[in-house]
């Protein structure tokens, strides 16, 4: 076991960890942040997507020890994020979730899409979502939710952050 220190959701979090423990398992089992979900565990499904140093990564194929000293933001760390609040509302309004298993990874990815690709159209949204699997919604609601937020922000809606 090694003791590692991560900056998780704005707080310093030191905890012992095995070298083979994924960042996802460390967040869930070592730090009790169970909003990050573990799906395929080989980088395909996207359920475990979190932010590492401000960009989305797969926490199932990123080892916790490799993140020593780095900033991690999980879904729990977006509570006060204005863009995420907008996305949450749009996901709810557009029926972008059902069972919720993929949702936290979807939201982290959606957050990245809106920030990085403000001009994204529907086909670009779909392309960017290819790495996040959902088995409930058929994606239409998710795509609509992200398109709605992009549209609101392009229109300069007053609640856009």
């Amino acid at each position, binding site marked *: 076991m090694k003791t590692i220190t991560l900056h998780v959701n704005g707080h310093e979090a030191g905890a012992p960890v095995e070298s083979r423990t*994924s960042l996802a398992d460390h967040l869930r089992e070592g730090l009790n942040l169970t909003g990050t979900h573990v799906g395929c565990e080989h980088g395909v499904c996207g359920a475990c*997507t979190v932010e*590492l140093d401000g960009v989305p990564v797969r926490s199932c*194929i*990123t*080892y916790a020890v*490799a993140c020593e000293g780095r900033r991690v933001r999980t879904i729990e760390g977006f509570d006060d994020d204005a863009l995420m609040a907008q996305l949450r509302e749009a996901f709810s309004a557009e029926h972008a979730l059902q069972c919720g298993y993929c949702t936290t990874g979807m939201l982290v990815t959606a957050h*990245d899409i809106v920030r990085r690709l403000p001009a994204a159209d529907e086909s670009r949204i779909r392309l*960017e979502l290819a*790495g996040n699997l959902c088995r409930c919604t058929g994606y239409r609601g998710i795509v609509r939710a992200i398109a709605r937020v992009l549209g609101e922000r392009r229109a300069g809606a007053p609640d856009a952050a």
Partner: protein
Amino acid sequence: MKPAPFDYRAATDVADAVALLGEGAVHAKACGGSQSLGPMLNLRLAQVERLVDVSRLDALQAISLSDDRLRIGAAVTHARIEDGELPDATRGLLPFVAKGIAYRAVRNRGTLGGSLAHADPSADWVATMRLLDAELVLAGPGGERRVGAGNFFLGPFTTVLEADEIIVAVEVPIFSGRARWSYRKTCRKPGEFADAIAAVWLDAECGIARAVIGALDAMPHVIAGAEALGALRSPGAIGRALDAAGVEGDYEREVHAVMLRRALNDVLPA
């Protein structure tokens, strides 16, 4: 699945990485962003006693441009290439290829050197570096050595890298202003490994005419020379090229033929 236990060591510099890899009888492997090796470890298709992390080494992060070459550090991520952080030496080819690799969350971690060391025959950088005849700079206990992409890959998932060597950088040639290229691939779903890859680079000023058929059971198949490329336009030539590349199966032959035809149409005058 969870990987079997291993020891993790973050290398402090290139010499340290080489020393950590070569220590005693430990079965060690270098890793960058762990986007190829991580899945292999998690699925227990690969098992190591020690993982040597080289992803944070400054020497492997550098990007530099000389008169005729662009040198890209082995730990440069696909996302950095996608975002155009390096000089546009290939008239947009490298960012185009990078953008098509897996998913953004993978590209944020996965590295150029890691992908080449992993040597998946369907990997985009494997086909691209064969197309460009890139040169890999390797570091080992005896110092550095250079290996052309044509000699680096011995076969699927097998390279000339010794157990105590790492890739430091990849050097690619600079395209002339008249260079033309095409990179075509087909995947069952965007971001998955390709079923077929065809890439072509024509650069009359540099005397380059080269095509690559990738995503094969073996390493990419290269067709070199303006004459050989031009001959691909004659009836039956695509089929013969696929024979030479060892492409078998109706679906495989169809998708490889379509990719190659499209890539040729992109760059050759009709």
